[in-house]
């Protein structure tokens, strides 16, 4: 296989207000190479891609591509396309109502005498599909085909327009195993034709199955470029989490969270949702803090949401405090004593224009029902109590919650749920994007809640945080719960091993 470099990014930097998104990052892609780009939240993966494809502009550094002299600065996706770079996203960016052939050629349809030549277009489309070993009727509308096939059409379009660099951004998230295999066959075919492929993903197994090289980013900086078959899984996980995997220096869990043996609060059996999280069993006891750990995209939030009914599960049974509960919608979960702090506080948490007071009492109000509203005085008392308890920094309780800092907004949402006095509280990334001081406050609060007998589910990408607060951990990988770690096993190395899977040192 020829080894010429088709794309070289050197020392790329970019800042957004208040954050260094990319800090002198290098990236190299060779002809006929499938190269994985990996990193956790805030690593800079998407920024690097955006800079390459012209969605954003970078501030310093150089990008060179085969066939183009000098620094290639793309100002738009169309320009990037003209230079030979195409991107296929997770949400297939094609038009469902148009035929496959049309989706492949729209904007550059073959014409005859000034009007579109459908016959030629359909034939060219058919030939293109055949050359990629896809045998389908190109005249049918796109939406008649599965997402997997739609993605392949998107890839075919991208490749037909420019064959140098193909970027696949999280293409396998909605595919089942068979479809993933089909995709890989297509990728290998393209690889043999000399196309360089950048594969952005978080699925460990898939990376090891199909990629030649891996580049890992973390916090905007390059961690390193590795040859896949020479990098053991555990090392990869360690590098992504910014840790050193060292058999000897096992950092033990600190903090006072203990594994309890109290009554069962949550007893979940076989709960799963097609395409999101494979069926799992989970037990949580009073006073426990159970952490969900795994790489980004491993299904942690999906598991939480399936428990709470935010996304109705397809299968399984749930018992809360010993009683079977059917959760068709969040209100059912709430009435059973559950609470859920969503990962995306902006879109699913805060009600931006309403006051701190309103935001705080909303969930409890929903439990009380529409015809028993809280009196103004009662609302004010409750709000003041939790503003004080959580030390929420706000001008006063009537301030619109959108004016608060991220950390304080998070406290408001936390307060909202604490007000409902839940038996089981699910916290999904409660400390993301929050200052260090507030982070610690929230972690301490979680421990305190467990001491008061509440059961807590804690999801976080930061291992130390979890070690400090959790008494038990469930490990997820690639959309599935793969194991649990008990109190005595809670240390960094065990966590990374469990996440990585396979035999640790291979």
């Amino acid at each position, binding site marked *: 296989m020829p080894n010429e470099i088709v794309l070289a990014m050197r020392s790329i930097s970019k800042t957004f207000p208040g954050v260094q998104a990319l800090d002198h990052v290098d990236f190299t892609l060779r002809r006929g190479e499938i190269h994985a780009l990996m990193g956790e939240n805030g690593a800079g993966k998407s920024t690097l891609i955006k800079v390459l494809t012209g969605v954003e502009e970078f501030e310093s550094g150089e990008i060179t591509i085969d066939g183009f002299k000098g620094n290639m600065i793309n100002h738009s996706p169309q320009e990037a396309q003209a230079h030979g770079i195409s991107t296929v996203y997770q949400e297939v960016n094609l038009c469902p109502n148009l035929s496959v052939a049309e989706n492949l050629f729209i904007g550059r349809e073959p014409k005859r005498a000034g009007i579109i030549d459908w016959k030629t277009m359909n034939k060219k489309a058919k030939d293109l599909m055949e050359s990629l070993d896809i045998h389908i009727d190109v005249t049918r509308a796109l939406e008649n085909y599965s997402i997997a096939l739609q993605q392949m059409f998107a890839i075919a379009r991208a490749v037909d327009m420019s064959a140098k660099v193909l970027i696949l951004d999280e293409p396998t998230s909605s595919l089942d195993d068979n479809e993933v295999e089909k995709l890989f066959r297509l990728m290998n075919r393209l690889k043999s034709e000399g196309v360089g492929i950048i594969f952005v993903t978080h699925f460990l197994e898939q990376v090891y199955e199909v990629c030649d090289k891996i580049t890992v980013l973390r916090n905007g900086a390059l961690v390193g470029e590795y040859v896949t078959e020479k990098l053991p899984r555990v090392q990869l996980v360690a590098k992504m989490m910014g840790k050193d995997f060292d058999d000897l220096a096992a950092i033990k869990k600190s903090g006072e969270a203990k594994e309890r043996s109290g009554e069962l609060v949550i007893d979940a059996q076989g709960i799963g949702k097609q395409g999101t999280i494979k069926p799992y069993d989970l037990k949580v006891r009073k006073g426990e803090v159970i952490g969900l750990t795994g790489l980004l995209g491993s299904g942690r939030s999906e598991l939480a949401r399936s428990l709470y009914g935010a996304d109705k599960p397809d299968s399984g049974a749930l018992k809360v405090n010993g009683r079977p509960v059917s959760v068709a919608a969040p209100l059912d979960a709430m*009435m059973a004593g559950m609470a859920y702090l969503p990962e995306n506080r902006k879109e699913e948490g805060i009600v931006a224009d309403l006051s701190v007071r309103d935001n705080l009492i909303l969930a409890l109000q929903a439990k009380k029902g529409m015809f028993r509203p809280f009196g103004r005085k009662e609302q004010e008392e409750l709000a003041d109590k939790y503003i004080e308890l959580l030390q929420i920094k706000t001008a006063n309780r009537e301030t619109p919650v959108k004016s608060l800092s991220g950390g304080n907004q998070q406290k408001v949402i936390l307060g909202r749920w604490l007000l409902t006095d839940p038996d089981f509280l699910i916290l999904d990334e409660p400390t993301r994007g929050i200052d260090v001081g507030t982070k610690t406050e929230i972690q301490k609060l979680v421990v305190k809640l467990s001491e008061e007998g509440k059961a807590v589910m804690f999801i976080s990408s930061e291992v130390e945080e979890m070690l400090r607060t959790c008494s038990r951990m469930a490990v997820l990988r690639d959309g599935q719960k793969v194991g649990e770690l008990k109190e005595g096993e809670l240390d960094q190395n065990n966590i990374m091993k469990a996440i990585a899977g396979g035999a640790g040192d291979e």
Partner: protein
Amino acid sequence: MNKLIVFVKKLTGTRLFLPLFCLVLVLLSNLIKTPTFFQVTIKNGVLYGYIIDVINRASDLVILSVGMTMVVAASGGTDISVGAVMSVAGAVCCYILAGGLQTVNEFQNPYILGVLAAVFAGMLCGCFNGFLVAKMKIQPMVATLILFTAGRGMAQLITRGQITYIRVESYKMLGASIPGIPVPTPVFVALLVVILTYVLLKKTTLGLYIQTVGINSRASRLMGIKSSRIIFLSYVFCGLCAGVSGLVASSRIYSADANNIGLNLELDAILAVALGGNSLGGGKFSLLGSVIGAYTIQALSTTLYAMGVSPDQIPVYKAIVVVIIVALQSTELKKMAKRFQTGREAGKRVA
């Protein structure tokens, strides 16, 4: 001087400033045109004067605006069937009170029955709209377009294509005045509707829920608030308001004129909500703002009439105002303004 600036900033920053400012502006322009505008006398035991007329005639619109505010706030959509629903309600009431005849001198059925039937008809129309929007997830605009067209036809059918007259003194009272009370009745009715709505919003959680659903329906759902139910209820309520307004309008002319009752009032209602400082995209709302907006529009119409503009021609000016307000509210315009501003600043920096 600084204190004054701070005071002015604070004043202009309050939510109701712009609506009040517009109202005052329009009232003043009325005063210029008609110096006796604010003069109030008593004729036949009832208050009389230009300003009284404005307040009186605005009542129909005020009631409509209350319902429209709920719909806009909860769903970010508008209900353009309200004028037609008014017509239906008026037709239903007159049909019942006339017992099917074309013109009567006394009630053929109890007055209260006619009133209830009209209000119920309005709510039924609201249910129809609400079902299409909340359950079938059809765009509010299109869903309400159906009654917008079919409504008047249905009203025509109910009145057998004729205008049904109720020549009974007590029927006219709703639209005119009750003996012994100097204030015209519609003003009371409007006031009553506003107050009752306000109480409904505060004494139940409806006000809070509508705003929550309008601002962030995903978060609402996660907190256990049923968005589709709230949206459905907002349309039913709007239909109810249209029903009440139709009663008042019908009472003014002591008849059911299917073609003319509530004509063009739908645009006025939308305009009132927008003028009241409410975002047409939904979310936080101010009932008082819409009410002020309604009076402003009526006053504006009066100004235009005084300038010789006929009722048929007024919509031109209202259309322009709507477009200006909506354009100002649009995020794209703000983006364009920002880009223009940063462009100029960049130019300055380079220079």
